[in-house]
Protein backbone atom coordinates (compact mmCIF):
# COMPACT_ATOMS: atom_id res chain seq x y z
CA UNK A 1 0.00 0.00 0.00
CA UNK A 2 1.28 3.44 -0.88
CA UNK A 3 1.96 5.14 2.42
CA UNK A 4 3.15 8.49 1.12
CA UNK A 5 1.31 11.64 2.15
CA UNK A 6 1.39 15.31 1.34
CA UNK A 7 1.16 17.44 4.45
CA UNK A 8 0.75 21.11 3.52
CA UNK A 9 3.14 20.70 0.62
CA UNK A 10 5.53 18.55 2.58
CA UNK A 11 6.16 15.21 0.89
CA UNK A 12 6.38 12.40 3.43
CA UNK A 13 7.10 8.75 2.58
CA UNK A 14 4.68 7.71 5.28
CA UNK A 15 2.54 9.45 7.90
CA UNK A 16 4.75 8.49 10.88
CA UNK A 17 6.85 11.24 12.47
CA UNK A 18 8.51 11.50 15.86
CA UNK A 19 7.35 14.10 18.38
CA UNK A 20 9.41 16.99 19.64
CA UNK A 21 11.24 16.39 22.91
CA UNK A 22 10.98 12.62 22.70
CA UNK A 23 13.45 11.91 19.90
CA UNK A 24 16.30 14.29 20.73
CA UNK A 25 17.90 15.60 17.57
CA UNK A 26 17.21 12.26 15.89
CA UNK A 27 20.89 11.28 15.99
CA UNK A 28 20.37 9.54 19.33
CA UNK A 29 18.17 6.95 17.57
CA UNK A 30 20.42 6.07 14.65
CA UNK A 31 21.59 2.90 16.34
CA UNK A 32 18.02 1.67 16.80
CA UNK A 33 16.72 1.82 13.26
CA UNK A 34 16.90 3.41 9.86
CA UNK A 35 16.05 7.10 10.37
CA UNK A 36 15.29 7.45 6.68
CA UNK A 37 12.45 4.96 6.97
CA UNK A 38 10.47 7.49 9.03
CA UNK A 39 8.01 9.95 7.53
CA UNK A 40 9.91 12.69 9.32
CA UNK A 41 11.39 13.74 12.64
CA UNK A 42 10.56 16.78 14.75
CA UNK A 43 13.49 17.87 16.83
CA UNK A 44 13.50 19.02 20.46
CA UNK A 45 12.12 22.55 20.91
CA UNK A 46 14.63 25.25 19.97
CA UNK A 47 14.78 28.86 21.10
CA UNK A 48 16.88 31.77 19.82
CA UNK A 49 19.20 31.65 22.83
CA UNK A 50 20.22 28.52 24.79
CA UNK A 51 17.91 27.64 27.69
CA UNK A 52 18.93 25.70 30.82
CA UNK A 53 15.47 24.34 31.58
CA UNK A 54 13.98 23.49 34.96
CA UNK A 55 15.61 21.97 38.07
CA UNK A 56 15.59 18.22 38.85
CA UNK A 57 13.59 16.10 39.30
CA UNK A 58 12.03 16.82 35.93
CA UNK A 59 10.28 13.55 35.14
CA UNK A 60 7.94 11.20 36.96
CA UNK A 61 6.27 7.99 35.86
CA UNK A 62 2.48 7.89 36.28
CA UNK A 63 -0.06 5.17 35.44
CA UNK A 64 0.23 4.60 31.69
CA UNK A 65 2.05 7.87 31.24
CA UNK A 66 4.63 10.29 32.49
CA UNK A 67 4.93 13.84 33.69
CA UNK A 68 7.70 16.07 32.47
CA UNK A 69 8.82 19.55 33.34
CA UNK A 70 11.97 19.82 31.25
CA UNK A 71 11.37 23.51 30.54
CA UNK A 72 12.61 23.53 26.92
CA UNK A 73 16.26 22.94 27.76
CA UNK A 74 18.07 23.44 24.46
CA UNK A 75 21.39 24.71 23.13
CA UNK A 76 19.80 27.40 20.95
CA UNK A 77 18.90 27.31 17.29
CA UNK A 78 22.40 28.13 15.95
CA UNK A 79 23.96 25.22 17.76
CA UNK A 80 21.40 22.85 16.23
CA UNK A 81 21.92 24.22 12.73
CA UNK A 82 25.70 24.04 12.84
CA UNK A 83 26.33 20.90 14.91
CA UNK A 84 23.34 18.57 14.58
CA UNK A 85 21.51 19.25 11.33
CA UNK A 86 24.52 18.54 9.05
CA UNK A 87 24.78 15.06 10.60
CA UNK A 88 21.16 14.20 9.80
CA UNK A 89 20.24 12.72 6.39
CA UNK A 90 17.97 15.70 5.74
CA UNK A 91 17.99 15.23 1.97
CA UNK A 92 15.99 12.03 2.35
CA UNK A 93 14.48 12.54 5.81
CA UNK A 94 12.21 15.54 6.42
CA UNK A 95 13.54 17.30 9.52
CA UNK A 96 10.96 19.56 11.14
CA UNK A 97 12.09 22.11 13.68
CA UNK A 98 10.00 22.83 16.77
CA UNK A 99 10.14 26.48 17.85
CA UNK A 100 9.83 27.98 21.29
CA UNK A 101 9.75 31.70 22.09
CA UNK A 102 8.18 34.00 24.63
CA UNK A 103 6.33 36.42 22.36
CA UNK A 104 5.10 36.73 18.79
CA UNK A 105 8.01 38.96 17.71
CA UNK A 106 10.58 36.47 18.99
CA UNK A 107 8.76 33.62 17.23
CA UNK A 108 9.04 35.71 14.06
CA UNK A 109 12.78 36.19 14.59
CA UNK A 110 13.29 32.46 15.03
CA UNK A 111 11.35 31.74 11.87
CA UNK A 112 13.58 34.19 10.01
CA UNK A 113 16.70 32.32 11.16
CA UNK A 114 15.28 29.05 9.84
CA UNK A 115 13.65 30.33 6.65
CA UNK A 116 16.80 29.98 4.55
CA UNK A 117 17.94 26.65 5.96
CA UNK A 118 17.84 24.04 3.24
CA UNK A 119 17.84 21.14 5.69
CA UNK A 120 14.74 22.30 7.57
CA UNK A 121 11.57 20.91 5.99
CA UNK A 122 8.96 22.77 8.05
CA UNK A 123 8.44 24.70 11.26
CA UNK A 124 6.33 23.43 14.13
CA UNK A 125 5.44 26.24 16.49
CA UNK A 126 5.04 25.31 20.14
CA UNK A 127 2.45 27.67 21.61
CA UNK A 128 1.54 25.12 24.21
CA UNK A 129 4.34 24.17 26.60
CA UNK A 130 3.01 23.88 30.15
CA UNK A 131 6.49 23.89 31.65
CA UNK A 132 7.73 27.41 31.17
CA UNK A 133 6.63 30.49 33.03
CA UNK A 134 7.01 32.91 30.13
CA UNK A 135 5.01 32.42 26.95
CA UNK A 136 4.28 28.72 26.61
CA UNK A 137 0.77 27.75 27.45
CA UNK A 138 -0.34 31.35 27.91
CA UNK A 139 -0.32 31.76 24.12
CA UNK A 140 -1.89 28.41 23.58
CA UNK A 141 -4.92 29.31 25.65
CA UNK A 142 -5.65 32.63 23.95
CA UNK A 143 -6.96 32.33 20.39
CA UNK A 144 -5.95 35.92 19.54
CA UNK A 145 -2.36 35.17 20.55
CA UNK A 146 -2.37 31.97 18.51
CA UNK A 147 -3.37 33.99 15.44
CA UNK A 148 -0.70 36.60 16.16
CA UNK A 149 2.06 34.01 16.56
CA UNK A 150 0.95 32.19 13.41
CA UNK A 151 1.05 35.46 11.47
CA UNK A 152 4.47 36.43 12.80
CA UNK A 153 5.99 33.04 11.94
CA UNK A 154 4.31 32.76 8.57
CA UNK A 155 5.54 36.23 7.57
CA UNK A 156 9.17 35.25 8.17
CA UNK A 157 9.19 31.57 7.27
CA UNK A 158 9.80 31.99 3.54
CA UNK A 159 8.29 29.03 1.74
CA UNK A 160 8.49 26.64 4.65
CA UNK A 161 5.22 25.14 5.86
CA UNK A 162 4.19 26.44 9.27
CA UNK A 163 2.48 24.07 11.68
CA UNK A 164 0.99 25.39 14.91
CA UNK A 165 1.11 22.91 17.80
CA UNK A 166 -1.90 23.31 20.06
CA UNK A 167 -2.46 22.70 23.75
CA UNK A 168 -5.25 20.46 25.01
CA UNK A 169 -5.49 22.61 28.15
CA UNK A 170 -8.29 24.75 26.74
CA UNK A 171 -12.06 24.67 26.88
CA UNK A 172 -12.59 24.84 23.12
CA UNK A 173 -9.98 23.24 20.90
CA UNK A 174 -11.93 24.04 17.70
CA UNK A 175 -11.61 27.78 18.34
CA UNK A 176 -7.86 27.43 18.84
CA UNK A 177 -7.54 25.41 15.65
CA UNK A 178 -9.44 28.07 13.69
CA UNK A 179 -7.29 30.77 15.28
CA UNK A 180 -4.19 29.06 13.87
CA UNK A 181 -5.80 28.76 10.45
CA UNK A 182 -6.83 32.42 10.56
CA UNK A 183 -3.21 33.37 11.24
CA UNK A 184 -2.18 31.64 8.01
CA UNK A 185 -0.86 28.38 9.44
CA UNK A 186 -0.38 25.64 6.84
CA UNK A 187 -1.23 22.90 9.29
CA UNK A 188 -1.76 22.16 12.95
CA UNK A 189 -0.50 19.48 15.28
CA UNK A 190 -2.05 18.38 18.54
CA UNK A 191 -1.90 17.56 21.36
CA UNK A 192 0.90 18.88 23.47
CA UNK A 193 0.94 17.58 27.05
CA UNK A 194 -1.92 17.89 29.52
CA UNK A 195 -1.19 19.89 32.63
CA UNK A 196 -0.77 17.44 35.52
CA UNK A 197 0.75 16.76 38.93
CA UNK A 198 2.05 13.91 41.09
CA UNK A 199 2.95 13.88 44.79
CA UNK A 200 4.82 11.61 47.19
CA UNK A 201 2.82 10.96 50.38
CA UNK A 202 5.84 9.65 52.29
CA UNK A 203 8.01 12.67 51.72
CA UNK A 204 4.96 14.95 51.41
CA UNK A 205 6.52 16.59 48.37
CA UNK A 206 5.63 17.05 44.72
CA UNK A 207 7.38 14.53 42.47
CA UNK A 208 8.58 17.29 40.15
CA UNK A 209 10.69 20.22 41.29
CA UNK A 210 8.46 22.42 39.14
CA UNK A 211 5.41 21.00 41.03
CA UNK A 212 3.27 20.92 37.86
CA UNK A 213 4.26 19.21 34.63
CA UNK A 214 2.97 17.91 31.31
CA UNK A 215 1.26 14.52 31.14
CA UNK A 216 1.89 12.36 28.09
CA UNK A 217 1.81 8.73 27.04
CA UNK A 218 -0.99 6.17 26.51
CA UNK A 219 -2.93 7.75 29.39
CA UNK A 220 -3.70 10.84 27.28
CA UNK A 221 -4.73 9.07 24.07
CA UNK A 222 -8.50 9.40 24.44
CA UNK A 223 -8.18 13.13 25.11
CA UNK A 224 -5.83 13.52 22.15
CA UNK A 225 -8.11 11.59 19.82
CA UNK A 226 -11.07 13.75 20.81
CA UNK A 227 -9.06 16.95 20.26
CA UNK A 228 -7.86 15.78 16.85
CA UNK A 229 -11.39 14.80 15.84
CA UNK A 230 -12.73 18.23 16.83
CA UNK A 231 -9.87 20.10 15.17
CA UNK A 232 -10.17 18.16 11.90
CA UNK A 233 -13.80 19.16 11.74
CA UNK A 234 -13.06 22.81 12.51
CA UNK A 235 -10.44 23.63 9.86
CA UNK A 236 -9.50 22.97 6.26
CA UNK A 237 -5.74 22.80 6.85
CA UNK A 238 -4.23 19.35 7.53
CA UNK A 239 -3.81 18.02 11.03
CA UNK A 240 -1.02 15.97 12.62
CA UNK A 241 -2.31 13.91 15.50
CA UNK A 242 -0.34 12.87 18.54
CA UNK A 243 -0.77 11.93 22.16
CA UNK A 244 -0.27 8.45 23.51
CA UNK A 245 0.31 6.64 20.22
CA UNK A 246 2.26 3.46 21.01
CA UNK A 247 1.23 1.01 18.29
CA UNK A 248 0.29 1.01 14.61
CA UNK A 249 -3.33 0.47 15.69
CA UNK A 250 -3.17 3.65 17.77
CA UNK A 251 -1.76 5.52 14.78
CA UNK A 252 -4.60 4.16 12.61
CA UNK A 253 -7.15 5.52 15.09
CA UNK A 254 -5.85 9.05 14.57
CA UNK A 255 -5.88 8.61 10.79
CA UNK A 256 -9.44 7.30 11.00
CA UNK A 257 -10.66 10.47 12.71
CA UNK A 258 -9.01 12.52 9.99
CA UNK A 259 -5.38 13.19 10.87
CA UNK A 260 -3.12 13.39 7.79
CA UNK A 261 -0.06 12.30 9.75
CA UNK A 262 0.78 11.26 13.29
CA UNK A 263 3.67 11.69 15.70
CA UNK A 264 5.13 9.16 18.12
CA UNK A 265 6.20 10.71 21.43
CA UNK A 266 6.49 9.09 24.84
CA UNK A 267 6.25 5.62 23.24
CA UNK A 268 9.83 6.16 22.03
CA UNK A 269 10.77 5.52 25.67
CA UNK A 270 8.92 2.19 25.85
CA UNK A 271 11.66 1.02 23.56
CA UNK A 272 13.75 3.18 21.29
CA UNK A 273 12.70 1.46 18.07
CA UNK A 274 8.96 2.00 18.57
CA UNK A 275 8.55 4.51 15.73
CA UNK A 276 10.46 2.30 13.27
CA UNK A 277 8.25 -0.65 14.20
CA UNK A 278 5.07 1.41 13.70
CA UNK A 279 6.27 2.38 10.20
CA UNK A 280 6.61 -1.33 9.42
CA UNK A 281 3.33 -2.33 11.00
CA UNK A 282 0.96 0.38 9.77
CA UNK A 283 0.49 -0.96 6.22
CA UNK A 284 -0.29 -4.39 7.68
CA UNK A 285 -2.85 -2.93 10.06
CA UNK A 286 -4.53 -0.95 7.29
CA UNK A 287 -4.65 -4.05 5.11
CA UNK A 288 -6.13 -6.03 7.99
CA UNK A 289 -9.01 -3.57 8.37
CA UNK A 290 -9.59 -3.68 4.61
CA UNK A 291 -8.52 -0.13 3.85
CA UNK A 292 -8.19 0.31 0.08
CA UNK A 293 -5.66 3.08 0.47
CA UNK A 294 -4.46 5.55 3.03
CA UNK A 295 -6.63 8.22 1.40
CA UNK A 296 -9.70 6.03 1.55
CA UNK A 297 -9.10 5.19 5.20
CA UNK A 298 -8.29 8.72 6.37
CA UNK A 299 -11.29 10.38 8.01
CA UNK A 300 -13.57 7.47 7.13
CA UNK A 301 -15.00 7.26 10.64
CA UNK A 302 -18.62 6.17 10.54
CA UNK A 303 -20.62 8.19 13.03
CA UNK A 304 -23.81 6.98 14.64
CA UNK A 305 -26.88 8.19 12.76
Amino acid sequence: MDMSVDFAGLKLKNPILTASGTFGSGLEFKRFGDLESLGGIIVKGLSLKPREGNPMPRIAETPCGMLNAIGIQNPGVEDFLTKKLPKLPWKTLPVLVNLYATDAAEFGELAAVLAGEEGVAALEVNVSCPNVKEGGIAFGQDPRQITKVAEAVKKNAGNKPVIIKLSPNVTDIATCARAAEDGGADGISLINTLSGMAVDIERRTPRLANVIGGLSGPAVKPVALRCVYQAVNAVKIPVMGLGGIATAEDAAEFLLVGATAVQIGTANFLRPDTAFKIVEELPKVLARVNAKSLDEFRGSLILPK
Partner: protein
Amino acid sequence: MSANNCRAVKVVDITPLGHSSPGEEIVELKLEYPGWESGWRVGQFVMIRPVSWPLDLIWGRPFSISSADDTTLTILFQVVGRGTKRLMELSKGDSVNIWGPLGSFFSKPKDRPVLMLAGGMGIAPFCGYVDSHQQPENLKLFFAHRPPLENYPYKALSDKVEVEDIQENKPEDIHTIIARVEALVKEYGEKNGLVVACGPTPFLRTIQRAALKYGVDAELSLENRMACGVGACLGCVCKDSEGHFTQVCTSGPVFKATAIDLEG
Protein backbone atom coordinates in the same frame (compact mmCIF):
# COMPACT_ATOMS: atom_id res chain seq x y z
CA MET B 1 19.17 -1.58 7.20
CA SER B 2 20.95 -0.08 10.17
CA ALA B 3 21.68 -2.04 13.32
CA ASN B 4 19.07 -2.22 16.01
CA ASN B 5 20.64 -2.23 19.43
CA CYS B 6 17.30 -2.89 21.06
CA ARG B 7 16.52 -6.61 21.35
CA ALA B 8 14.34 -9.05 23.18
CA VAL B 9 16.46 -11.59 25.04
CA LYS B 10 15.51 -14.45 27.36
CA VAL B 11 16.00 -14.67 31.10
CA VAL B 12 18.63 -17.34 31.72
CA ASP B 13 18.32 -17.30 35.49
CA ILE B 14 17.00 -15.11 38.25
CA THR B 15 17.92 -15.64 41.91
CA PRO B 16 17.75 -13.63 45.11
CA LEU B 17 21.14 -13.24 46.77
CA GLY B 18 21.68 -14.12 50.42
CA HIS B 19 18.68 -14.06 52.73
CA SER B 20 17.36 -10.60 52.02
CA SER B 21 14.40 -9.51 54.09
CA PRO B 22 11.44 -7.80 52.41
CA GLY B 23 12.36 -4.31 51.31
CA GLU B 24 16.00 -5.30 51.02
CA GLU B 25 15.85 -7.96 48.33
CA ILE B 26 18.83 -8.06 46.04
CA VAL B 27 18.47 -10.15 42.93
CA GLU B 28 20.88 -11.50 40.36
CA LEU B 29 19.38 -11.48 36.88
CA LYS B 30 21.14 -13.40 34.14
CA LEU B 31 20.06 -12.65 30.58
CA GLU B 32 21.13 -13.98 27.21
CA TYR B 33 23.96 -11.81 25.93
CA PRO B 34 22.36 -9.50 23.34
CA GLY B 35 25.23 -10.01 20.92
CA TRP B 36 26.56 -6.48 20.78
CA GLU B 37 29.05 -6.39 17.96
CA SER B 38 31.19 -3.68 19.52
CA GLY B 39 31.19 -5.26 22.98
CA TRP B 40 30.77 -3.28 26.19
CA ARG B 41 32.90 -1.46 28.76
CA VAL B 42 32.82 -1.59 32.54
CA GLY B 43 30.62 1.17 33.95
CA GLN B 44 28.21 1.14 31.03
CA PHE B 45 24.57 0.32 31.61
CA VAL B 46 21.51 -1.10 29.87
CA MET B 47 17.85 -0.16 29.83
CA ILE B 48 15.61 -3.12 30.60
CA ARG B 49 11.86 -3.44 30.00
CA PRO B 50 10.31 -6.89 30.14
CA VAL B 51 8.10 -7.68 27.15
CA SER B 52 5.32 -8.60 29.59
CA TRP B 53 5.14 -5.13 31.13
CA PRO B 54 1.85 -3.50 30.26
CA LEU B 55 1.62 0.22 29.60
CA ASP B 56 1.23 1.13 33.26
CA LEU B 57 5.01 1.05 33.46
CA ILE B 58 6.22 3.30 30.68
CA TRP B 59 9.96 3.44 31.07
CA GLY B 60 12.61 0.82 30.94
CA ARG B 61 14.84 0.72 34.02
CA PRO B 62 18.57 1.46 33.92
CA PHE B 63 21.01 -1.05 35.42
CA SER B 64 24.77 -1.29 35.37
CA ILE B 65 26.22 -4.20 33.48
CA SER B 66 27.64 -6.21 36.32
CA SER B 67 29.43 -8.70 34.12
CA ALA B 68 29.03 -10.42 30.79
CA ASP B 69 30.57 -13.12 28.65
CA ASP B 70 29.77 -14.44 25.18
CA THR B 71 26.53 -16.05 26.34
CA THR B 72 25.27 -14.28 29.45
CA LEU B 73 24.85 -10.75 30.74
CA THR B 74 24.45 -10.30 34.48
CA ILE B 75 22.59 -7.53 36.26
CA LEU B 76 22.28 -7.10 40.02
CA PHE B 77 19.37 -5.13 41.28
CA GLN B 78 17.76 -4.12 44.53
CA VAL B 79 14.00 -4.08 44.87
CA VAL B 80 13.07 -0.46 45.61
CA GLY B 81 9.79 0.26 43.82
CA ARG B 82 7.16 -0.61 41.23
CA GLY B 83 9.49 -1.66 38.45
CA THR B 84 12.06 -3.62 40.41
CA LYS B 85 9.24 -5.44 42.27
CA ARG B 86 7.95 -6.69 38.94
CA LEU B 87 11.41 -7.51 37.67
CA MET B 88 11.74 -9.83 40.64
CA GLU B 89 8.70 -11.75 39.34
CA LEU B 90 10.40 -12.70 36.07
CA SER B 91 11.02 -16.39 35.43
CA LYS B 92 13.52 -18.33 33.38
CA GLY B 93 12.67 -18.08 29.70
CA ASP B 94 10.73 -14.79 29.95
CA SER B 95 11.53 -12.20 27.30
CA VAL B 96 13.07 -8.89 28.20
CA ASN B 97 13.66 -5.93 25.90
CA ILE B 98 17.11 -4.55 26.43
CA TRP B 99 18.91 -1.64 24.83
CA GLY B 100 22.54 -0.80 25.23
CA PRO B 101 25.35 -0.75 26.00
CA LEU B 102 24.80 2.86 27.02
CA GLY B 103 26.89 5.66 28.42
CA SER B 104 30.48 6.20 29.45
CA PHE B 105 32.74 3.82 31.36
CA PHE B 106 35.46 3.61 34.01
CA SER B 107 39.16 3.91 33.19
CA LYS B 108 41.27 0.85 33.93
CA PRO B 109 44.85 2.03 34.40
CA LYS B 110 47.45 -0.75 34.24
CA ASP B 111 50.12 0.58 36.50
CA ARG B 112 48.36 2.68 39.11
CA PRO B 113 46.61 1.51 42.27
CA VAL B 114 42.84 1.73 41.97
CA LEU B 115 40.41 2.24 44.84
CA MET B 116 36.85 1.10 44.15
CA LEU B 117 34.31 2.81 46.38
CA ALA B 118 30.87 1.21 46.37
CA GLY B 119 27.75 2.32 48.20
CA GLY B 120 24.97 -0.30 48.31
CA MET B 121 24.04 -1.49 44.83
CA GLY B 122 26.90 0.63 43.57
CA ILE B 123 28.86 -2.58 43.95
CA ALA B 124 27.31 -3.95 40.73
CA PRO B 125 29.75 -2.59 38.11
CA PHE B 126 32.80 -3.52 40.19
CA CYS B 127 32.22 -7.24 39.66
CA GLY B 128 32.95 -6.65 35.98
CA TYR B 129 35.73 -4.21 36.85
CA VAL B 130 37.61 -6.80 38.88
CA ASP B 131 37.06 -9.57 36.32
CA SER B 132 38.35 -7.49 33.44
CA HIS B 133 41.28 -5.83 35.16
CA GLN B 134 44.68 -6.99 34.07
CA GLN B 135 46.23 -6.53 37.50
CA PRO B 136 43.75 -7.32 40.28
CA GLU B 137 46.61 -6.95 42.76
CA ASN B 138 46.41 -3.19 42.17
CA LEU B 139 42.76 -3.06 43.23
CA LYS B 140 41.08 -2.43 46.55
CA LEU B 141 37.34 -2.30 47.27
CA PHE B 142 35.74 -0.30 50.05
CA PHE B 143 32.08 -1.13 50.48
CA ALA B 144 29.45 0.79 52.49
CA HIS B 145 26.17 -1.10 52.81
CA ARG B 146 22.98 -1.58 54.86
CA PRO B 147 21.78 -5.15 54.12
CA PRO B 148 24.20 -7.85 55.31
CA LEU B 149 27.25 -8.69 53.21
CA GLU B 150 25.95 -12.11 52.15
CA ASN B 151 23.21 -10.38 50.18
CA TYR B 152 25.81 -8.90 47.85
CA PRO B 153 28.31 -10.56 45.50
CA TYR B 154 30.93 -9.57 48.06
CA LYS B 155 32.51 -12.95 48.55
CA ALA B 156 33.23 -13.22 44.82
CA LEU B 157 35.17 -9.97 45.08
CA SER B 158 36.95 -10.62 48.37
CA ASP B 159 38.41 -13.79 46.88
CA LYS B 160 40.14 -11.72 44.22
CA VAL B 161 41.03 -8.32 45.65
CA GLU B 162 41.71 -6.54 48.93
CA VAL B 163 38.40 -5.55 50.54
CA GLU B 164 37.05 -3.56 53.45
CA ASP B 165 33.45 -2.81 54.43
CA ILE B 166 31.36 -0.82 56.88
CA GLN B 167 27.76 -1.76 57.54
CA GLU B 168 25.44 1.11 58.29
CA ASN B 169 23.28 -0.12 61.17
CA LYS B 170 22.43 3.19 62.79
CA PRO B 171 22.46 6.81 61.59
CA GLU B 172 25.76 7.61 63.36
CA ASP B 173 27.56 5.05 61.19
CA ILE B 174 27.37 7.56 58.34
CA HIS B 175 30.09 9.61 60.07
CA THR B 176 32.38 6.59 60.27
CA ILE B 177 31.81 5.92 56.59
CA ILE B 178 32.47 9.53 55.60
CA ALA B 179 35.69 9.64 57.65
CA ARG B 180 36.95 6.37 56.20
CA VAL B 181 36.12 7.40 52.61
CA GLU B 182 38.00 10.68 53.09
CA ALA B 183 41.05 8.94 54.51
CA LEU B 184 41.11 6.38 51.71
CA VAL B 185 40.73 8.98 48.96
CA LYS B 186 43.58 10.98 50.48
CA GLU B 187 45.75 7.87 50.73
CA TYR B 188 45.17 6.97 47.07
CA GLY B 189 45.94 10.54 46.05
CA GLU B 190 49.28 10.32 47.82
CA LYS B 191 50.21 7.21 45.87
CA ASN B 192 49.01 8.61 42.53
CA GLY B 193 46.06 6.24 42.49
CA LEU B 194 42.70 6.39 40.76
CA VAL B 195 39.41 6.36 42.63
CA VAL B 196 36.36 4.85 40.91
CA ALA B 197 33.01 5.11 42.68
CA CYS B 198 29.38 4.14 42.32
CA GLY B 199 26.49 4.60 44.74
CA PRO B 200 23.83 7.01 45.95
CA THR B 201 24.39 10.72 45.37
CA PRO B 202 25.21 11.66 49.01
CA PHE B 203 27.92 8.96 48.98
CA LEU B 204 29.34 10.29 45.72
CA ARG B 205 29.20 13.84 47.03
CA THR B 206 31.44 12.84 49.96
CA ILE B 207 33.90 11.28 47.54
CA GLN B 208 33.81 14.26 45.22
CA ARG B 209 34.53 16.67 48.09
CA ALA B 210 37.49 14.60 49.21
CA ALA B 211 38.80 14.16 45.68
CA LEU B 212 38.68 17.89 45.00
CA LYS B 213 40.17 18.72 48.40
CA TYR B 214 43.17 16.44 47.93
CA GLY B 215 43.42 16.78 44.16
CA VAL B 216 42.81 13.09 43.53
CA ASP B 217 41.76 11.58 40.17
CA ALA B 218 38.28 10.21 40.70
CA GLU B 219 35.52 8.87 38.46
CA LEU B 220 31.96 8.85 39.76
CA SER B 221 29.03 6.87 38.36
CA LEU B 222 25.67 8.59 38.91
CA GLU B 223 22.25 6.94 39.25
CA ASN B 224 19.79 9.59 38.13
CA ARG B 225 16.25 8.70 37.17
CA MET B 226 15.99 8.01 33.45
CA ALA B 227 13.21 7.75 30.89
CA CYS B 228 14.94 7.11 27.56
CA GLY B 229 18.53 6.26 28.50
CA VAL B 230 19.74 7.53 25.12
CA GLY B 231 20.02 11.30 25.55
CA ALA B 232 16.66 12.30 24.08
CA CYS B 233 14.33 13.29 26.92
CA LEU B 234 16.64 15.46 29.07
CA GLY B 235 15.05 13.99 32.17
CA CYS B 236 18.23 12.63 33.75
CA VAL B 237 20.44 15.72 33.76
CA CYS B 238 22.98 16.84 36.36
CA LYS B 239 24.98 20.07 36.53
CA ASP B 240 28.38 20.12 34.88
CA SER B 241 31.28 22.06 36.39
CA GLU B 242 30.21 25.16 34.48
CA GLY B 243 26.71 24.98 35.89
CA HIS B 244 25.03 23.74 32.70
CA PHE B 245 22.74 20.73 32.66
CA THR B 246 24.13 17.67 30.95
CA GLN B 247 22.60 14.24 30.33
CA VAL B 248 23.75 11.58 32.76
CA CYS B 249 22.78 8.81 30.33
CA THR B 250 25.04 9.97 27.51
CA SER B 251 27.68 12.28 29.05
CA GLY B 252 27.80 9.83 31.98
CA PRO B 253 26.91 7.83 33.95
CA VAL B 254 30.66 7.87 34.72
CA PHE B 255 32.02 11.40 35.13
CA LYS B 256 35.37 12.74 36.27
CA ALA B 257 34.88 14.28 39.73
CA THR B 258 36.07 17.62 38.34
CA ALA B 259 33.49 17.59 35.53
CA ILE B 260 30.27 17.78 37.51
CA ASP B 261 28.72 19.74 40.34
CA LEU B 262 26.89 17.53 42.82
CA GLU B 263 26.44 20.25 45.41
CA GLY B 264 23.70 22.28 43.67
